[in-house]
């Protein structure tokens, strides 16, 4: 399933003594019955799972899984600003994104400090900064660290969702939750929550981050070409995905608060 008879071209590439035979066939990402490569419907998101308090040493932490993508986020703060010159009457938000060496299919050589990680760190920082009420915590610093343990597409979104949960766990005041989801357009169908294979298919990939209650978009990134009228549809699909994730996150936070209440004996 998923492979359509078409032109075959065999590409050989070598390195490390291994020869990979890449066979290019015209891939069908959505079957005629309307199923994707992993059996999902076009508007179906992968299974999400979240857990709060994974890192005991952190002020707030969370694990977020979207299908096979697993991400762990830890928040340290508000704490004293390290660099005296950066003290201001707003909290300083810092973010670092890194991927574990074993997170992708082939082992990565440089997992931190490369351009993609730096870019995603910046994106996550600016997205979360839009929601944190930084004026309530002057002269302090909030550090958000995100580590990708398994990458299967949508790592950016999983990181933002994990960071939201971790910030909530740390008790940092925010305007609203920030949830994020990706959507794409392959075989003339808008698809929600792309995995790695669909992402690398070369079609457009729209990543969206919203403040669900306030209905405001804080992050919007798109690769590849997409006609404007189809963009509307794809964005709408991503917004639905984000709202569904927001509901799930709210449930998790509510459950967590109940647990805390039981432990306090309230």
């Amino acid at each position, binding site marked *: 399933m998923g492979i359509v008879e078409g032109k075959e071209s065999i590409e050989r590439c*070598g390195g*490390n*003594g*291994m*020869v990979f*035979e890449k066979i290019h066939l015209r891939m069908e990402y959505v079957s005629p019955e309307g199923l994707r490569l992993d059996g999902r419907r076009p508007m179906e998101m992968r299974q999400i799972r979240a857990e709060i308090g*994974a*890192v*005991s*040493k*952190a002020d707030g*932490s969370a694990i977020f899984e979207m299908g*096979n993508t697993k991400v*762990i*986020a*830890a928040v*340290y703060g508000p*704490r004293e600003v*390290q660099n005296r010159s950066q003290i201001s009457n707003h909290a300083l938000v*810092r973010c*670092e994104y*890194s991927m*574990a*060496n*074993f*997170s*992708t*299919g*082939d*082992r990565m050589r440089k997992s931190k400090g490369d351009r993609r990680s730096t870019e995603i760190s910046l994106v996550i920082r600016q997205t979360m900064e839009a929601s944190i009420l930084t004026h309530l915590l002057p002269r302090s610093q909030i*550090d958000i*660290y*995100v*580590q990708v*343990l*398994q990458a299967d597409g949508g790592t950016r979104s999983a990181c933002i969702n994990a960071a939201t949960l971790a910030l909530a766990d740390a008790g940092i005041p925010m305007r609203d939750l920030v949830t994020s989801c990706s959507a794409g357009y392959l075989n003339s169908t808008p698809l929600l929550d792309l995995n790695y294979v669909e992402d690398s298919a070369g079609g457009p990939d729209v990543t969206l981050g919203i403040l669900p209650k306030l209905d405001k978009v804080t992050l919007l990134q798109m690769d590849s070409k997409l006609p404007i009228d189809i963009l509307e549809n794809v964005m709408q699909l991503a917004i639905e995905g984000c709202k569904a994730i927001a509901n799930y996150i709210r449930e998790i936070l509510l459950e967590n608060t109940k647990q805390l209440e039981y432990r306090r004996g309230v």
Partner: protein
Amino acid sequence: MGLPNAFEDLSSELEVDAFRRLFPLRYFERHLAESIRTDGRPLGKARETSIFLGAVASANGSALVKIGSTTMLTAIKMEVMTPSLESPDEGCLAIDFFMPPICSPIVRPGRPAEASPVVSKQLSDTISSSKMIDLKELSLVSGKAAWMAYLDIYCLDADGALFDAALLSAVAALSHLQIPAVAMNDDGKIVLVSDEDGRKQAQEPVNKEKRKLTLRSIPFSLTCILHKNYILADPTAEEESIVETHVTIVLDTSGQLISLYKPGGPVLAYTSAIQDCVALTRQRVKELKSFLDKENPDMEV
């Protein structure tokens, strides 16, 4: 509910917490006088340990280990490489230990933790000197192809006894490791044989029988901290920050001493103290061996 009551409880709670932060040594010693530690453990007892094999599905071997709150995730990835000229029959094992900033408030991005390269070196030294792995088992075609196994250990939560948890997770991952099947294709190069193809296997797998590594003597370790006349096993990060003298002892399953590490510290240890540490370690080795055996019933030792 009694609000005044709650207020009193809260204020006495605050006093204990404040005392703990302001006078950590006195807080600690008050507990020691009663032969107990700050988390309620007896002096020689290690924290609850759990091992979970196969945590990373995409890796050839992986393990998640928790000792108390200290969490280590290890994953092994195998790649084919050409062996060196001096040892054409041997593969290679590369061990890397990472402490990402999520694990501890002391680690800052851009400034790696002090403990990270120390534990990394200790681990590679211990694993190579314990002769747990025979590198010849990692060889495929003599002189032409051999396995390079990358062992990456990530600390996800640093709460003391990092070396113990890291060694345990490395050992657990190695015991879980499944070497992928490879075959030699017509060009004389090694190719991965994929099982899900469904196509007829045109090539015979080169190493069909040797899918798992045989582990000989497995090293297990225990870190103890020495304070005045007390020996405390398996310290938490709080205890490690108060007491600066620690001793790490690595024994293998046959009871042989593989490594002893006491990097200075204000307390000078007499031989009797070291022997007590070894006795505690022996007990711990038995415990850890039974944990690992439970997870991995068909492991050959």
